């Protein structure tokens, strides 16, 4: 009892105190120490995984949390994460709840250990009940809430935990090989705690008919380290939606990493939807390697969290591989949302297109850092990048840093960034047609954001995001 109590974070403590369940608490200063302790409590995995985890945690301890002196974190202080001592969410959830689960099953009431019923998840499913859906609660796979039957022989979908348990060779081959953690503390930390997430393997020419939705639901105050691995074989094709949501306000921390391998000619659409609780912390990295003629279309929507960072990294390894990285971030209140992208042009003849837009209100702070590296061999690169921001209040702030580094001599690369306010001329035009200031502001703001939402090809998702954006900016 005492030991558990000491481990509580301050927020958790205040909640507990209110319910008078537990009394004594102490706030620990060094959360790295907490992670080390939690690491020691992890159930031991197969040897190769243990070795990978150890490298991860060791690298994390070596790097420590990044400070604003680190160029990649110049505009984002992670102190609120570093100062808190988060406990692993999954460990407490997965232990000793079998009885409750069993009882619930017997009653015919489908639920999972966290007490989540399918109907609670309806609002996160974009009105689509027939997508292949893998639900994770506090980082752990929730089989009862998931449905992904009938995917055929050429597609393998399971939880990562299951894939590891069954000794998947593909997992062992790729896990930890795509997402580099030598310089990325949060990826190193995630690697130290690899336990669960989604594993999808598309065999050559496999085509998945419907989107695969990886839905991560948080419901507490701990930390989870979801780890996803997507291996897409030659000429395979699939659409992924990776969502992060919460059922109630919590000061939890999600530290997710998704690794993707695109074989030659593979075509992957990846939508990352970050709608965490507004008091939560989120660091999410999506890292891909693309083979010859492959296509990656990524869209990142970020609107949740008090402090959130999304990294979308891809490496164009094979000739004529393409990527589009688009995104929209909406911030309000005192939110801080940081978006970092990196495109490595390694092979020649690769086009990369990127459009990120931000709408910032209140006293919020948005950050965009888009890097494009063109390696010496990457001739005939065609890179376009833009970042446009709309400030809705005088106290909102944005830092934008498009970064181009070109080491090849026959390339076409453009980039640009804008920061602006609502156009007063357009405002007057709308007013002069009978549309009042509030409605005009909604309309203009929506129009600014809708422009990039239009690039979403997955129609139900686009529709829902448009609705969400419109509702958000309606006075």
């Amino acid at each position, binding site marked *: 009892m005492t030991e558990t109590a000491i481990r509580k974070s301050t927020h958790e403590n205040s909640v507990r105190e209110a319910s008078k369940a537990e009394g004594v608490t102490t706030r620990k200063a060094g959360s790295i120490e907490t992670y080390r302790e939690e690491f020691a409590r992890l159930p031991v995995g197969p040897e190769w995984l243990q070795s990978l985890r150890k490298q991860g945690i060791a690298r994390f301890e070596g790097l420590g949390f990044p400070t604003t002196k680190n160029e990649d974190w110049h505009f984002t202080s992670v102190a609120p994460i570093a100062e808190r001592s988060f406990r692993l969410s999954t460990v407490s959830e997965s232990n000793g709840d079998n009885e409750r689960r069993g009882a619930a099953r017997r009653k015919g009431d489908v639920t999972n250990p966290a007490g989540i019923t399918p109907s609670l998840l309806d609002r996160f499913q974009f009105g689509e009940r027939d997508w292949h859906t893998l639900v994770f609660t506090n980082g752990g796979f929730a089989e009862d809430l998931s449905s992904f039957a009938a995917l055929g022989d050429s597609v393998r979908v399971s939880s990562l935990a299951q894939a590891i348990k069954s000794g998947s060779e593909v997992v062992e081959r790729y896990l930890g090989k795509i997402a580099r953690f030598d310089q990325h503390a949060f990826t190193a930390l995630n690697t130290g705690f690899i336990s669960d997430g989604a594993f999808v393997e598309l065999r050559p020419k496999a085509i998945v008919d419907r989107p695969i939705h990886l839905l991560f639901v948080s419901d507490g105050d701990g930390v989870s380290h979801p780890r996803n691995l997507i291996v897409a074989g030659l000429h395979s094709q699939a659409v992924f939606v990776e969502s992060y949501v919460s059922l109630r306000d919590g000061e939890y921390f999600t530290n997710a990493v998704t690794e993707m391998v695109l074989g030659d000619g593979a075509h992957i659409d990846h939508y990352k939807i970050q709608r965490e609780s507004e008091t939560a912390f989120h660091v999410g990295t999506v890292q891909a390697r693309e083979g010859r003629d492959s296509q990656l279309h990524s869209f990142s929507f970020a609107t949740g969290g008090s402090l959130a960072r999304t990294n979308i990294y891809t490496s164009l390894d094979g000739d004529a591989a393409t990527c589009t990285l688009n995104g929209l971030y909406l911030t309000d209140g005192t939110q801080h949302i940081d978006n970092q992208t990196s495109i490595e042009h390694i092979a020649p003849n690769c086009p990369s297109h990127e459009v990120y837009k931000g709408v910032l209100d209140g006293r919020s702070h948005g950050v965009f850092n888009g890097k494009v590296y063109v390696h010496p061999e990457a001739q005939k690169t065609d890179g376009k990048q833009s970042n446009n921001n709309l400030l809705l209040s005088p106290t909102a702030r944005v830092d934008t840093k498009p970064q181009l580094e070109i080491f090849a001599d026959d390339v076409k690369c453009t980039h640009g960034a804008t920061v602006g306010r609502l*156009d*007063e*001329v*357009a405002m*007057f*035009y*709308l*007013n*002069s*047609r*009978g*549309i*009042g*200031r509030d*409605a*005009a502001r909604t*309309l*203009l703001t*929506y*129009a*600014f*954001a*809708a*422009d990039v939402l239009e690039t979403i090809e997955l129609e139900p998702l686009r529709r829902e995001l448009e609705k969400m954006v419109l509702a958000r900016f309606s006075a």
Partner: protein
Amino acid sequence: MLVINDLHAGIGDREILRGITLRVNAGEVHAVMGPNGSGKSTLAQVLAGNPSYEVTGGSVMYNGQNLLELDPEVRAQNGIFLAFQYPVEIPGVSNAYFLRSAYNEIRKANGQEEVDPLEFLDLVEDRLKLVDMDQSMLSRSVNQGFSGGEKKRNEIFQMAVLQPRLAILDETDSGLDIDALRIVAQGVNKLRSPDNATIVVTHYQRLLNYIVPDFVHVLANGRIVKSGGKELALELEEKGYDWIQSSTPAAAGAVA
């Protein structure tokens, strides 16, 4: 309908309108002409309520109400419409959505029920024909990628849908070829009625061959220096604005 009395207005410290007095009754068409910088566009913008301009003196009564106290959207809801000299592009907002919002806001303000998208489509169909525009323009973003002529026709189309009581056309003819000009003028003429009034602001006489005014006013240095019938426009075209400007002091005295 509209009574402007000794109106002074400008931007910042610069006074542009220096005492405009004008009365417009229902059923009338008034042309306001004048050289560049005479204040004709400012007059149009001030009547529509552009917040960039500051009114420093005088009064404007519209159907018994103090117009200057009303926000631009309230003026529109009360039947004032300004066809812009430079229509604004709004990327990401379709013409249909924009115009339906405007239409419904005006209806709401007048205690009428809003219309749904399908009803609205029915309603605008023949108005589109009036300005010779295709229905596909409805799904395009407001004025984005429109040619100069399309933009002006879109202004008249909006006017046809919103059916204002007082329409102010700010240099709607400028930059139009003769075919486009005819279409625009035809649209305006179709909408004339004994219950509404039009103020046509223009630099040239040409438009007034198609939209025949009841009165012509000549603006110079922020004042109306001469008023008359439609013949005045022809005389002005023939003699040029220098004629008016050289006779300004006398004319100004006559008006005062």
